[in-house]
C-alpha cells in the first residue's frame, strides 16, 4: 500500500518538475523579482539629473547668505536685483529662491521660482538647509552658552524593555514587535504556499476527473492513496521550487544586487548607517537576545511542522473540492469556503500578537484551520508544551481525515453526473472499500 503511495508521489513529482512550464516559471520568477527590485534603482540612476544646478538666491533680508553652501550637485549665486530683472539677466540658472525678509517673522516668506516644475528632492534639500540655519540662529539668539548641546541631550528617546519571568524566575527578554513580524511573515509564507500548491492539487484532481484517467486509476489504487500521493508529490514540487528561489535569491543578494546599487546611494546609505549605528547596534542585540529568549531551534522546528501541516490540511481540502466539482470553472467558486478560514486565521493572528494568552488565541491555535498561523504568532510568548503537541496532533489528524474524505468524494464523484450526493450516499461510500 505505502509502495503505491510512493509510486504516485514520485510520478506526480517527476511529471510536474520535468514540465517545460515548471522550469521556465521557476527560473523566470526570481528574474522578474530581481528586475522589480533593481529597476527603480537603475531608473533613478539614469533619470537623476547629474548636471550641476545653479540656484540664484535673492535675499531681501541679507541674513541668509551663510545658509547656502555650494555642494557637488548644486551651486548658489547671490543676486541683488528685482525678481523680473534677475530673470532676464540670469537665464542660465535652474531657479530663483526669493526671500522676502527675516524668516522668523511669520509674515515673511521664501519662494522658489523657476521655468520648470521643480524637483521635489531639491526642494526638500533647500527647505532643510534653510530651516536648520534659521533654527540654529534662533538658538544662538538666546545667548545661553552650550544651548545646542543641552537641547540635544534633552531629546532622549525612552524605550521600555519587556522582560518575562519563566517558572524558575530567570529573566527572558521579549519583544512583541519581533513576534508580530515573525508571526505575520510566516503566516504570509504559509498563505502563499497553500494557495499556489493547494490550487495545483485541486487542478490536478479536476483534470484527472475530466480526462477520465481516474477510472483506470481507481481500479488500481485506493482513492486515499491517490490523494495522499498527489498532495505529498505536489508539496515536494513546491518545496523544490522554493529551494531554488531561495538559492537564486541568496546569490542575487550576495553578488548581483551590489553591482547594480548606485554609488551615491551606497554612500548615503553608509552615512545613515553611521548616524544610527549606535541605535541599530542596540536593536540588533535586542533581536538576538529576544530570539535566544524564545529558543531559535524550537521555533524553526515548529515553524516547519506547522508550515507542512497547514499546507497538507488545506491541500487535502482543495483536493476534496476538486473531487466534488466537474470542471475548472466550478472549482473556482468552491475555493471561497477554503479561503475564509485562512483569512480568519490571519486576523486572529494579528489580534493574538497583542493578546497571546487570550481564549480566542488559545482556541484558534487548537482549531486545525487556523492553528498553523495563530500558533506561530503565539510561539514567542512561551506556549505550554501540551498545547503545542495537542494542536499538532489535531492538525495532522485532520489532514489524514480530510484526505480520506476527499478520496471518498473522488470515488463517488465518478458516478455523480451533475447530481449532488446525499449524506446517506456519502456515508455508504465512506464504508465501502
Amino acid at each position, binding site marked *: 500500500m505505502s509502495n503505491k503511495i510512493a509510486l504516485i508521489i514520485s510520478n506526480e513529482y*517527476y511529471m510536474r518538475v520535468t514540465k517545460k512550464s515548471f522550469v521556465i516559471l521557476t527560473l523566470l520568477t526570481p528574474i522578474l523579482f530581481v528586475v522589480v527590485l533593481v529597476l527603480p534603482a537603475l531608473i533613478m540612476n539614469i533619470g537623476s539629473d547629474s548636471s550641476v544646478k545653479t540656484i540664484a538666491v535673492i535675499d531681501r533680508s541679507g541674513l541668509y547668505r551663510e545658509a547656502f553652501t555650494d555642494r557637488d550637485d548644486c551651486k548658489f549665486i547671490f543676486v541683488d536685483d528685482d525678481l523680473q530683472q534677475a530673470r532676464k539677466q540670469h537665464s542660465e540658472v535652474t531657479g530663483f529662491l526669493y526671500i522676502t525678509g527675516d524668516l522668523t517673522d511669520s509674515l515673511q516668506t521664501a519662494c522658489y521660482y523657476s521655468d520648470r516644475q521643480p524637483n521635489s528632492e531639491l526642494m526638500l534639500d533647500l527647505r532643510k538647509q534653510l530651516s536648520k540655519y534659521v533654527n540654529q540662529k534662533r538658538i544662538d539668539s538666546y545667548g545661553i552658552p552650550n544651548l545646542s548641546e543641552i537641547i540635544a541631550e534633552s531629546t532622549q528617546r525612552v524605550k521600555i524593555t519587556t522582560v518575562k519571568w519563566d517558572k524558575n524566575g530567570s529573566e527572558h527578554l521579549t519583544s512583541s514587535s519581533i513576534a508580530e513580524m515573525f508571526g505575520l511573515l510566516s503566516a504570509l509564507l504559509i498563505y502563499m504556499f497553500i494557495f499556489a500548491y493547494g490550487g495545483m492539487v485541486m487542478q490536478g484532481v479536476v483534470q484527472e476527473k475530466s480526462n477520465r*484517467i*481516474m477510472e*483506470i486509476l*481507481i481500479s*488500481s*489504487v485506493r482513492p486515499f492513496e491517490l490523494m495522499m500521493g498527489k498532495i505529498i508529490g505536489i508539496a515536494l514540487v513546491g518545496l523544490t521550487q522554493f529551494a531554488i528561489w531561495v538559492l537564486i535569491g541568496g546569490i542575487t543578494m550576495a553578488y548581483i544586487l551590489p553591482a547594480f546599487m548606485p554609488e551615491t546611494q551606497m554612500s548615503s546609505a553608509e552615512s545613515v548607517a553611521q548616524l544610527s549605528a549606535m541605535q541599530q547596534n542596540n536593536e540588533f542585540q535586542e533581536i538576538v537576545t529576544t530570539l535566544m529568549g524564545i529558543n531559535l531551534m524550537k521555533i524553526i522546528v515548529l515553524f516547519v511542522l506547522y508550515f507542512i501541516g497547514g499546507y497538507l490540511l488545506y491541500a487535502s481540502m482543495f483536493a476534496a473540492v476538486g473531487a466534488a466539482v466537474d470542471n475548472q470553472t466550478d472549482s473556482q467558486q468552491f475555493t471561497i469556503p477554503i479561503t475564509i478560514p485562512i483569512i480568519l486565521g490571519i486576523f486572529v493572528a494579528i489580534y493574538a500578537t497583542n493578546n497571546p494568552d487570550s481564549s480566542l488565541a488559545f482556541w484558534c491555535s487548537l482549531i486545525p484551520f487556523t492553528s498553523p498561523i495563530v500558533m506561530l504568532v503565539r510561539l514567542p510568548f512561551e506556549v505550554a508544551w501540551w498545547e503545542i503537541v495537542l494542536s499538532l496532533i489535531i492538525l495532522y489528524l485532520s489532514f489524514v481525515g480530510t484526505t480520506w474524505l476527499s478520496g471518498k468524494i473522488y470515488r463517488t464523484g*465518478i458516478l455523480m453526473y451533475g447530481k449532488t450526493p446525499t449524506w446517506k450516499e456519502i456515508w455508504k461510500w465512506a464504508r465501502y*472499500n
Partner: protein
Amino acid sequence: MLIINNVSKSFGQKRALDHISLEVPDGIIYGLLGPNGAGKTTLIRIINAITAPDSGEALLDGQPISLENAAQIGYLPEERGLYKDMRVGEHVRYLARLKGLSDLQAREQMNLWFKRLDIESWRFKNIEELSKGMAQKVQFIATVIHRPKLLILDEPFSGFDPVNADIIRQEILRLNREGTTVILSTHNMESVEAMCNRITLINNGRAVLQGDVQQIRQQHRKGIYRVVRTIDGEQVEQNVQKLPGESNNALIQRLVAEGEISTFEEILPSMNDIFIQTVQS
C-alpha cells in the same frame, strides 16, 4: 471465472441495474450488449470494484471483487484518458506499476508490446502529441500490460481506422487464445458475431437476452432462404420466406417448379437485427 449474482444498483430514482445475473466461463469472449444508457457501464464499474452494487454480488474466481483481486482485471474504459504531460513510455510504465508489476517487469512487458504494435518510435513522445487513434493504442497496451486474467474492453475499436481496428482485433484474439477471458462491450454487431462466444443483452437495466451467439441466431431464425435459380435462361437471386409448417423439401419443390436451383441456403438473422428487434419489443 466471473459470476454476477442478482446485482441491482440505483442512482436516486433511476434503477441502472435490475437483478442482473450472468456467468462468464474461463477462456471465452463474452459480449455485453445494449443500447446507450442500458446500464452496461455501471455493470462494468461494479466488476472493476469502482462502485459497489446495492444488492447482489460480483465474484471473481469465487472471491468478492475488491482492489486486491482487481489487479487480475484489465479495464479499458469507454471514455479514455491519459496524463497529457507524460511521455508515452513513462505513462505505460507508471500504469503497469500501479497494477503491481515491478519496474523490471514493466519495462520488459512494455518493450514487448511496443514492438508488437510497432510503436517503438513513440516512446519519448508526449501523450499530448498523439492522435486519437495513437493514444488509443497506448491505452490498449496499458490495459493489457500486466497480463490480466480477465480483460474488460468498453468499445475497444472506436477511434481506430480499419487497419488498426483489425490489428487490435487480432491482438484480442491472440490474448484470448493464450487464455485470457475477455468481456467485450460494443455496439459493433459485426465484431460481436465474429468474436463473441456468448452474450448478454441489457436493456433498461435488465438482462433481456442471454446465451450462445450461434444458438441465439438459431432461435431467432425466420425461415428466410437465399435462393439462386435459373429462370428462362437468366440467373435470379431471391430471398424466400418459408410458409408456416412447410418443410425444407416442400419449399424446394415449390421453388424447383419455376426453375433450376443452383444455391439454397438459410439466412440466419444478424445480431444487428436481433439487437434492434429485442430492444424495440
